[in-house]
């Protein structure tokens, strides 16, 4: 058939085929993380223009300048891991490096066995910091958090932590002496409720995680780290028979029935209530340390972002829940060596500091000064035990969290059911869930 082609065209066809086969073999050679790659494809959870994207972008530019490795970055946004997931089983995984929230990296890489073990990254020297490797600079607490069965599944660079936020300018008394126990918190809320003639707590209850924070934090404070996860995974539901569990939930019931939540909290669209808080319509907001960033444009001039941890309960010790944002590398990444080099490069103090100075967030390096809006969070982190947010349940038992816990919890926090009804419903639904999914 090809014999009928004109000679010029035939030469082109043969030449094209040869070029294609050379390209294919080159691609095959570069598979499996060839050493000294000169290119790298990076998919990021940030959108172009976001402060973190600006910080990473500057680091990418200097990385390319110093190493000659070209980084093709795509600012994919928060769904980055979901976008990458369908490609992980193929020969051509399109990204060599991603960054994302911990739970997305874990579900995409860890649960499927498609993530690279990042322990070797911890052994890499940090460029520009002589004698220091990545393991010397990352707070060991966060390394432990992002390691399972000895395998590091995430290299974290940013820390998220849930606290109760308020305006330090208008609530100077709170800034001077934040409540440390549940009773102190309730006394404070009583005072604020009387002063403003309405509920002082802002809550966007339509974002199911936010009412979940209240219930989880109460259980954590009373029963300690791991109790919530133990209840979630208890096939018999017996853990929910513990009177301490009901007592913790009753604290939330008291807040609901006592009218401590601001009007409209159970019938608004996010971010109406957090904006209401930022504009003075409520005093307190239980939220991750992204609260300042999300409300900055609504807050009046001079708003002073301050926060205190959820007060200690029956467990009696200060505990701070955290989640992480960090890097992950697909197991079949073609340029995993370059991806690892970039991670080590970015963890350099000067470069990572910009997450603090430019993006106003907390980093995973203990030696980086924190921005003013995160100072209270950092103070808590320094003195408290850290636990994975929601005991890691949202990450590890997402089916139970979404289908069993959240519906019952939202009903509790929005006043549709009592604490006793909540516990009974949760227990029954948990037993049914594990019967079906165990």
């Amino acid at each position, binding site marked *: 058939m090809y014999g009928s082609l004109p000679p010029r065209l035939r030469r082109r066809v043969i030449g094209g085929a040869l070029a294609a086969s050379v390209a294919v073999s080159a691609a095959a050679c570069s598979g499996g993380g060839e050493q000294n790659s000169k290119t790298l494809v990076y998919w990021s959870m940030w959108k172009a223009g976001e402060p973190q994207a600006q910080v990473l972008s500057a680091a990418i530019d200097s990385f390319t300048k110093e190493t000659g490795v070209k980084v093709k970055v795509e600012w994919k946004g928060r769904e980055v891991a979901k976008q990458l997931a369908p490609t992980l089983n193929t020969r051509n995984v399109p990204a060599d490096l991603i960054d994302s929230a911990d739970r997305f990296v874990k579900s995409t890489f860890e649960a499927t066995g498609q993530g690279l073990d990042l322990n070797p990254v911890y052994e890499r020297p940090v460029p520009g910091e002589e004698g220091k490797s990545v393991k010397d600079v990352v707070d060991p607490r966060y390394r432990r958090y992002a390691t399972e069965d000895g395998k590091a599944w995430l290299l974290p660079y940013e820390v998220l932590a849930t606290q109760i936020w308020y305006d330090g300018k208008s609530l100077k008394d709170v800034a001077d002496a934040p409540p440390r126990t549940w009773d102190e918190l309730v006394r404070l809320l009583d005072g604020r409720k009387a002063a403003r003639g309405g509920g002082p707590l802002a809550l966007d209850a339509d974002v199911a995680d936010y009412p979940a924070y209240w219930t989880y934090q109460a259980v954590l404070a009373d029963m300690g780290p791991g109790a919530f996860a133990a209840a979630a995974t208890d096939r018999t539901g017996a853990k929910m028979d513990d009177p301490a569990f009901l007592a913790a939930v009753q604290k939330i019931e008291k807040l609901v029935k006592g009218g401590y939540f601001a*009007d*409209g909290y159970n019938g608004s669209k996010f971010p109406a209530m957090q904006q209401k808080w930022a504009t003075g319509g409520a005093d307190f907001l239980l939220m991750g340390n992204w609260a300042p960033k999300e409300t900055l444009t609504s807050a009046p001039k001079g708003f002073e972002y301050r926060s205190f941890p959820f007060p200690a309960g029956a467990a009696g010790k200060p505990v701070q829940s955290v989640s992480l944002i960090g890097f992950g590398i697909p197991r079949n990444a073609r340029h995993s060596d370059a991806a690892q080099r970039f991670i080590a490069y970015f963890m350099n103090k000067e470069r990572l500091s910009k997450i603090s100075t430019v993006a106003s967030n907390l980093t995973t390096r203990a030696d980086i000064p924190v921005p003013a809006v995160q100072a209270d969070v950092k103070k808590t982190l320094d003195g408290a035990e850290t636990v994975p947010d929601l005991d890691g349940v949202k990450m590890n038992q997402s089916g139970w969290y979404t289908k069993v816990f959240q519906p019952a919890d939202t009903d509790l926090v929005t006043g549709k059911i009592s604490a006793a009804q909540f516990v009974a419903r949760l227990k029954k639904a948990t037993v049914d869930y594990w019967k079906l999914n165990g």
Partner: protein
Amino acid sequence: MAATAVRKARPAHAAAAAHASPLERRRRRLFWPFVAPALLLYAVFYIVPTLVTAWISLNDWAGAGPMRFAGLDNYRRLMLDPVFHDAFTNTLVILFVVGGATFALSFVMTIILRDMAGRKAVRSIIFFPNIVSGIVLSILWGFLFQADGVVNTALRGAGLAHPPNWLGAHLFTVIMIGLVWAQTGFFTTILMAAVDRIPRELYEACDLEGASALQRFRHVTLPLMWDVVGVCAVLWSIHAIKLFEFIYAFAGAAGQLPPTHVWNTAVYAYAEAFSGVPRYGSAAATGMVMLALVAVLVVLLRRLFRRDGVQY
């Protein structure tokens, strides 16, 4: 014996071809060149993915890594999962209640618009929700119905001290109202196009007979647009079953899933595939259930709307 039958059939077929007119023969030669590309595309983009989905539904699979054959286990779990029951019920409620309200409203609009001055402008206005993205509509719906939203402000202004907690207590109802609002213009526009084709003299005859607007609709308009109503019913059924973005964007917030009591089967499938560790097997099984539902409905609707064509 089969071979004999084939041998016998061949000359008969050849003879038939030989007796066909030249136009017929040319048509036959052109059949495959014309049909093959469409068939190929259909096979590649519809049949093959459907078969792959059916296969995935028989496995446990996280989207990457190994697949584990699970037989009908995903279907068994769907049948026993209370959240799926709610989602399936919601899908049927959307299909029949929202569909019924949408069609009833569309018929009323058709009756009103037929004789109305400026109906073209009105038609454009009521079609408007279809041009705007579902995400934008959902944001608008949030502004309207939240605690301090436009609707409650108006109700308070009208003297109602305690207006309903729309999003807290009646979320699914608000979603249904939104769907009726968004869909009515679309179906009214299609039905009006059918009404425009009906000869005016039939309505003039009605006027001479003294028929009311409702009688005109029942005896002239509806019978003569019956085929189009059938097409609309099929379109709505397919749309209602795979409806996703309005519920997801309106009832979900900050990138999170909506509360489970307002999920339909499409949201359920999405949640299985994209919340936490992906369960593509379960999501695919949900997709197959939706496909079966569409197939049954389309067959039933075609039977319901089948009748001899009316020439006019």
